[in-house]
């Protein structure tokens, strides 16, 4: 009986990216410019400073954010934007069945 789901507080993670700021991405941007466009690189690779990833996902239906994508950016070795591609962000969320909330 899913309609009696216990209320789950919404989970929202990542950077709010607008379509036009994603369109403004172009080669040769340095990391500060990318940060200005997309926000702080919270998904930057822990072990590889030339590889950033941006993501946005939320369970809050009321959220009006349009871009819910996963952006993968690579920088050349003097940290200028080399290439980037956009994938759909499908975060593996577990929607568990609960019996009266248990």
């Amino acid at each position, binding site marked *: 009986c899913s309609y009696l789901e*216990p*209320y789950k507080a919404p989970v*929202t*993670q*990542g950077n709010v990216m607008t379509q036009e700021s994603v369109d403004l991405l172009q080669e040769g941007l340095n990391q500060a410019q990318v940060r200005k466009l997309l*926000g*702080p690189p*919270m998904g930057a690779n822990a072990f590889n400073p030339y590889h950033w990833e941006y993501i946005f996902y939320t369970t809050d239906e009321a959220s009006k954010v349009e871009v819910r994508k996963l952006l993968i950016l690579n920088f050349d070795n003097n940290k200028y934007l080399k290439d980037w591609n956009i994938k759909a962000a499908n975060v593996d969320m577990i929607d568990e069945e609960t019996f009266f*909330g248990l």
Partner: protein
Amino acid sequence: FVVEKITVEGANRIGYETINSYLPVTKGEFLSSTLTKQTIERLYKTGFFDNVSIYQRGQGELVIDVVERPSISEVKIEGNKLIETEVLEDALQTLGIKKGRIYNQLDLDRIIIDLKRRYQNQGYYAASVSIESTELARNRVDLLIKIVEGEPASMGRIALVGNEVYSDRRLKGIMALSETGVFGLGDSYSKPKLEADMEKIRSFYLDRGYAQFKIDSSQVSLSTDKTKVFTTINMKEGDRFTLSKVAFTGETIISQEEIDRITDVQAGDIFSRSKIIDAVNIIRERLSEEGYAFAEVEPDTIINPTDKTMDVTFKIEPKDRVYIRYVDFEGNTRTRDHVIRRELRQLESAPYSLKAVRQSQSRLERLGFFKSSKIETKRISDDQVDLIVKIEEQPTGSFTAGVGYSQVDGVSFNIGLSERNFIGSGNKLDLQINTSSARKTADIGITNPYFTEDNVSLGMGLYFREIDAEELDVADYTTNNFGFRTSLGYPLSENNTLRYGLKFDAQELVCANTFNYCKDYIDDFGDKTNSVQASLSWIHNTTNSFYFPSKGQKTTLTLEAVVPGTSDAPFYKVFAEENLYLPMTKNLSLHLKGGLAYGDGYGDIDILPFYENFYAGGIGTVRGYEPNSLSANYDLDTDGSDRPVGGNTRVLTTVEMISPVPFVEDSSNQRISWFFDAGYAFNGLSNAKFNDMRASVGVGYSWITPVGPLTFSVAQPLNEQEGDETQTFQFTLGTAF
């Protein structure tokens, strides 16, 4: 000369190594003139010495002769009436004048100025301060501070020059300073008050359209005998301006019509500075709700004096969208990190949302574990911020234990522990055991509010009860029961929770031999009843604190019923309670409470079993009356007892004003309430008559002590009828919340 030996003379407080550690010169070094100058300078800088001199004695011996500054042994103050002695002593401490401190002649002048200035700030212009110091043995000194306060300078007259539109009386009305009133107790003048008053007049005019209002100058003069102060404020009102154009420019993020809706600054209004400031704050707050925590809103106004109108443009600059980097806690010396974190609605590595932070703030306060909890934002970079949650722990439970002896009861032993944040784990533990000859009860219950991450709470408990009801002054019968109960809480939304539970109960009814009403009941329904009771309740809670809410609402609707077929005395009960808290002023709030309880049997019995009756009277229901006494009584000869019957319908209402305790600075865990209680327990819905309700008025005081919540109440019954037993003073300790 080359230094072979260094000796220090005249120092007894400051040890040799200390002086040595400050010396730039060491043994065997050539002593140049710069070095000597440096040494003297260095020793003076330490502030320990009044006089330092260096000379050479014999061949190569450097002698440093110091005169140490005496230290203060006693500070006495006399002649101060207006400012108490400890206040002055604190002031002296901040100036470094304390028992044991080093005494420095230069400080004295500073002290005289400071003390005089304190008096002058209080308006005692004629006050004079003098200090006498008496030498003591062992280089110590006693200080005597003499103060002559004189008369306070009272306000002679306030002259307002240039105010044509608003009269002197109107303007003086809003000023804090008042002229020598008829009662002769004129306001004692102090400069800060005058500046505050001028600011009040300026904002008074700026809020009524006088955009060019200016206070040219203000003068303060003193009568020759220094007892009357005259103030003059010269002002130019200028013209009254109306807004001709209101525009919002820049990246407004939110739609234009929404801005118009939430701000009330429109073209055509009279110019008002406070309205414009409010509009700026409203917009900035709305933007931070959208995640732009550092948005800036700049109102700039263009005045066109010809037609006396003004254009206001709000320049909106949202700056970067802000994200949360970390959420850290400070001060949780007992409560664990996840117990706090699970209450927060603002996650890390997520967009900042003011709504979520506010929700987190009220959920923390509703938790009731902390004395105070404050969420502060610390800026990390243009687009990132850390949230620092500062909390202050407080006892969250009550603990009573005791051994007693009374002729009636014999030896009694009891232990009561109810802890809502058991060793900081967030779990609730209740343990009540007390045994005496007439009463043996045990009740163990534990609840984990976060059985699942989503605040689904699971609780269970065992209870055993065997009481001789006579003591409870309820009725001459006892019910012995033992059983097991479990309950599950289940959040439906941010503020609504569903709670359902099961109770397996085995009960045995034993009547006192005189109580024949109870005996007839046993003949009809038997004395042993086992039952499975189910309960379902819906709770809506938006209050802003656990112990002392001042805002919000708490509604509980509960249905308790015996599961059909599991008991031969099935009954059901319905409870409905509504609590409304309305903030009246900053710390005064109005609390309205209405409670309705109704119960009835179903199936083969048509009345609510008498031992399940509701009772009214005492703290928690109607204060000022004997506990459980507000209902009809059995009649002595037929039923064999004259105790209150209780009833299957109970109506309760309370209206109270709650405020912190006056004159107590930190009264965060104490409250005073002026209340009106009314209520009664009726036997049967049909004969619930309004004028049967008993009412009382009084004052209550509640205090969260380390041992548990303590409530006192002094009540004056209003419409007691004969036969009511009243109790003006009542108190309880550790009522389960």
